[in-house]
């Protein structure tokens, strides 16, 4: 004769579909003769069935569109191209969001007073040699790193401006007549955007640039001092 303790387990195994044929027979025989286990089985079955009545709202209908928006759209030829595309997008997004941040188009905490000193331009260049390990990098994490870096600069009052350059191919005007030339693949690595930052001196600016995730993800940063004497604000 089956003990109630075992019957209690088999009752649940029956509900979850984990009961063998022989166990089913033994359990049925036990329930026929045990009022307390029969009552327990009834309660557990009611709970189990009512769980099935707990509905779930529908997911958003634009889920696929959202997913597409977070990826480079379209068919890609190889993982190598993914690297370039994703890092470029990450840099672009980071800069674009930052622009909204700085110009007040998005909510932002108040920045402290701008630090005194010189001004520098960081020209962000895309990776010249894509790193294979970046294939597995999560674009959302990359973007967040860019945002964090830029946010810290803004809060410290060191961020003067930033712009993302359009993704269209390079267009060069050359010669005395300004003839159009390009896209010129020899201009790789391309400049994808720029930051203007305030720093005490060149070394301080280099330190800021070194903390950028752009270097970590294979990009290069050209650090240029802005000629404060020649003009400007």
């Amino acid at each position, binding site marked *: 004769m089956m003990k109630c303790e075992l019957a209690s*387990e088999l009752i*649940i*195994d029956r*509900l*979850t*579909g*984990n009961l063998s044929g022989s166990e089913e027979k033994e359990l049925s025989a036990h329930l026929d003769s045990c009022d307390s286990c029969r009552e327990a089985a009834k*309660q*557990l079955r*009611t*709970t*189990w069935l*009512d*769980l*099935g*009545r*707990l509905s*779930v*709202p529908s*997911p*958003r209908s634009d*889920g*696929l569109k*959202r*997913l*597409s928006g*977070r*990826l*480079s*759209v*379209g*068919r*890609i*030829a*190889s*993982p190598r*191209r*993914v690297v370039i595309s994703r890092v470029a997008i990450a840099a672009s997004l980071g800069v674009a969001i930052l622009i909204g941040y700085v110009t007040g188009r998005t909510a932002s905490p108040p920045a402290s007073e701008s630090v005194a000193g010189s001004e520098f331009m960081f020209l962000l260049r895309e990776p010249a040699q894509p790193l294979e390990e970046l294939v*597995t*990098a*999560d*674009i*959302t994490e990359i973007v967040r790193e860019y945002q964090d870096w830029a946010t810290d600069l803004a809060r410290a009052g060191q961020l003067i401006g930033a712009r993302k350059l359009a993704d269209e191919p390079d267009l060069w005007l050359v010669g005395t007549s300004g003839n159009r030339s390009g896209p010129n693949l020899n201009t790789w690595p391309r400049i994808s955007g720029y930051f203007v930052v305030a720093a005490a001196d060149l070394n301080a600016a280099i330190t800021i640039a070194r903390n950028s995730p752009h270097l970590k993800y294979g990009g290069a940063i050209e650090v240029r001092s802005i000629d404060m004497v020649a003009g400007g604000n």
Partner: protein
Amino acid sequence: MRVVDSRGQIDSNSDIELMSRLRSGDLQALGSLFLRHHARVYELCFRLCGDSQTADDLVQEIFLRVLRYRNNFAGKAAFPTWLNRIARNVCLDHFAKTKRRRSAQYQALESLSEETESSIDFPDERLTFLNKALMALPLEKREVLILSRYHSLSYAEIGKVCNCSESAVKVRVHRALRQLRDLYFELDRENDEV
């Protein structure tokens, strides 16, 4: 990202074929996998976190991880099992980041207390209570119960998703269902007394 062919039909490739295409760099395969599985993944996320907007966001993250870890899928486990494992990890990461796991349980427990003090006569209110009781379960019990009840997975399959033994799953499912039953029928007794 297209997921239908020129006749407007859903891609009929198997999950394994789609993953193979995805590994080759075809993002359309990810779209097909999304259409095929996102509702089920969303349901799992919603039942775990209890919030539709969060569940939608988690689904996005889950399919981004499918892309990110596409080379890790060797086809040894069924794709839904692999996907469930990613979904679970994403949910756990979410709970760890927001500490929602703890607060949700506390909120659910608080709600439970409020509900049991009121008179509940209607079936829908009973279901509301049952849902709160489900949310109040510790995550390790809730996840196995959800996978068993709503995804019809065997104890062994749940073990693969949750990275634990079949026997451990069995114990957790048993305890979870008994705990729910006790709460559910305790409510009945209180209503009878009122």
